[in-house]
Structures are given as C-alpha cells and as structure tokens.
C-alpha cells in the first residue's frame, strides 16, 4: 500500500511532506531552523535539541539554542546551529 501511495505521489508530483507527514525543514543561514510536521520535543537545552519526527529524531547541536515558537504544526529553533543530523 505505501508503495502505491509513493508511486501516485511521484506521478502526480504531490508534496511528500503532506502525503507522508514527513518533516519539512527550512534552514535560514545557521541561525534559525523551522521544522514543520514535528511530533514533539524529546530533549532541549542550550546546546542540544532533540525533536521527534516521522522519519526519526532530528538532532540539532549548537550554541545558545532556544525554542522561539512551538505550535502543533511547527517548531522554530534559533541560535548558533553547528550540526544537524537524523537519528534513526
């Protein structure tokens, strides 16, 4: 079933983040990151942020990190971002 869904999505050029609920990341320089379709915070402090998503944990490492805004659909993290990784 997911295979059919993927084929249809690719054939019709539909947005994957809508069809599969994948996280949609918007990085502004290395100062701000906007993550849409998140599933909550696992850990947050000034140097590390762990955010749950449908494709695993998004690990943000940096300095002076802070959550500027969080809503059911999105989370905006600002600070001096040094590393961004996915932990599966």
């Amino acid at each position: 079933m997911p295979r059919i869904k993927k084929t249809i999505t690719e054939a019709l050029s539909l947005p994957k983040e809508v069809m599969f609920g994948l996280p949609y990341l918007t990085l502004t320089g290395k100062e701000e990151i906007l993550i849409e379709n998140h599933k909550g915070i696992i850990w947050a402090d000034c140097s590390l942020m762990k955010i749950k998503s449908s494709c695993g944990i998004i690990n943000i490492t940096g300095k002076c990190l802070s959550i500027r805004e969080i809503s059911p659909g999105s989370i905006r993290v600002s600070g001096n971002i040094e590393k961004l990784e996915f932990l599966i």
Partner: protein
Amino acid sequence: MQSGLWNYFSGYVIISVKGFSWEKFVNKAVSTGINIWDIKCFADRTEMKIPLKECGKLRDCALKSGCRVKILEEHGAPFLFRRLRKKGFFMWGLLVFVTFLFILSSFIWEVRVKGALRIPEEDILSFAAECGIFPGAGRKNIDTDEAARKFILNFEEISWISIDIQGTRAEISIAEALEEKEPPVRSAPSNIVADSSGVIDRIYVSSGTPAVSEGDTVFEGDILISGIPLTPVDGEFARGEPVPAAGKVFARNTYSITLTLPKTRWEKVFTGKSRNLYTLILPGKEFSLPSFAKEEKPFEITGSKEKSLSFGDYSFPFGFKKETISFYEEKTLVYTENEAENILNNRLLYKLSGLDAGTKILNLTSDFSETPDSFVLKTELTVSESIGKEENF
C-alpha cells in the same frame, strides 16, 4: 504562528515550569492546541510565553506531565485595561482626548497651493473659500470634483487642476496655460541708410534691394538698402510693393586714438598706524566717545563693526559701533616707461572692448612716445563696422 502585536492585544502570560521533564509538559500543551513561544531554559526552571486565553488548559497539562506551573508575569492590552479601569478619571480623559482628536481631524486645517506662478495665491485661496475649501471647513462637505470644475470655469489661465484632501490638509495643484503671444506687428516700409561715411566692406540683405556694392564709398544719409524690391522682368526691373528693408551693411573706417598718462601721480601710503573709534548708538542718535589720542595726518576708515544688544531673536535699538582708522601720507610717485606702456595698452584694450558686436579690426598700429611731463600712445585703427540705420519713407 501569530504576530507579536496580535499577542499583545489578546494578552499573554509568562509562566515558569519546574519538574523532571518540562519537554513533556510542552508536548502535552502543544498537542492540546496551545501555542508557546520564547522558551528559555534555566538550571532550575524553564520560562515560556503562552496566550492568556489558553491558561485554563495548563492545569491539566501540568498534572499529566508532573510539572509545577507558576504564572510569573502578565502582559498585553487586557491587563493594561484592567489596571486602567481603576483610574476612572484617566480613562475619561483618554476617551475625551480620542473623541476630540477624531472631531478635529474631520476638519480642514491647512490649504496649500502648488504650481501658481502667474495667478496670485491669494486669489486662488479666496476662490477656494467660496468653493467651501478653507481652514475650518468640514472634510465631508467638500466636493473636490465640483470645486475643480468651478476653478477651471473661473480662471482662464488654469489648464489643469487637482484638489487633493490629505488628512487635514487640502492641496490645490494647478498647471497654468502658456501665455498667448501677440502676433508680430508689420512695420512700415523703410530704407536702411548710412549713419556715417565709409567704404563698403560687407553687405547682407534679408529684405529689400541693395543700393550699394562692396568697395563703394558712402556718406552719411546715403541709402544702403532700399525698401522697394526690384524684380527683373524681360530685361527690365519691375518695382514691387514697398517693404521694411532689413539687413546689415559693414563699412571700413579709420580712427585715430590718442591716450596720455601724466608721468607723476599722487598715492596714499599707509604709515601702519591705526586707531579705534567708538560710537554709542541710541534710538535716532549717535554719540562719538571722546578720544584722547593726538590727531595726526589724514586717515581713512578701514574697518567698521556694529553690534546691537539682543536677546534671542529680539534686538534692542541701541548698541556700539567700532571704527578702525588708518593713517596715511600722500606721496608723489613717478611711472617708469614700462609701467606707463602697460597702463596705456590696458586702457586701449578697454576702449576696444567697447566696440559694437560684429565690428572687425582690420588694421592697428600703435606708437608709444614720451613728452617732458607725460607718456603718449597714438593708435591708428582701421575697422569694419555696421553703419546702417532704419529710416521710414
């Protein structure tokens, strides 16, 4: 995502969350639809901002996540109004002020005119007042299209007008029509005659028939260009209708200029001594303050400074005047030959610069000589100059 202004108007609170896992509290709150912003982590607590209307849901989230929540600060318009409600007089004053401002802003306070060059601004303003545009007029009562139409009908000079109401200011922009030029008056038939004698050098005719040719000698009063046009017809000349003759006739003339310069001259030689004189200025009168210095040779005022007492922009009608006088001696000096020649040449150039435009210098010979008491520069000059003047039939 809501703007900061919206959050301010709807009100928000800063809360402090203490407990084992504040992340759990945030996840619970977000899943119940609460927007949270500006999360700051401290060693013992976490602070965050949430909307005022969502405060009721916090208790449930706190219980489920095992955290303790405390409201630290209250911000925004609802809290401000709650505080101001206790100050009734202030609120009434604010209300009266806003009402007063609203009423005043519904009137015109200034009328400006732009683009009026020939039409006096006072005329435009007085007519605008007749059309209902004047300081103090209600904005709603002004019909700008109707007023613009009246302006166009009343002022012939206006070719375009725009009346714009910007806030409490009415701006009348106008474009004036170009001035109507009077058609050129056809002048009476005339000849061009010589106003001095000479040998014709050049002749240019734009209207009429030339009566002389190059090389002819003419005398004062001779016709140079005739106002009667002659047209060749079958080997003969037919006289046409008389016209005003026009053109330029240049003739060669020779002049002699003699310039003299006396060998000696008087000159002021300042001795280097100077003194200050003080005068007291009173309304309508001036008093010179006495000077105890000994009177010396002739002097000249070389500096003057006046200062009146003033307070801010207001000047009092009294003050002081300080004049500096410098003493000099009159000495007799003698020109050298070179100096005299330079001065006389400069004077000659100055004289030549006064010649009419179009005059050409064909030949110039100068002779510098010396008499017992002066220097003399004799110049022979041949010029080609305009000699024509208009004379009616």
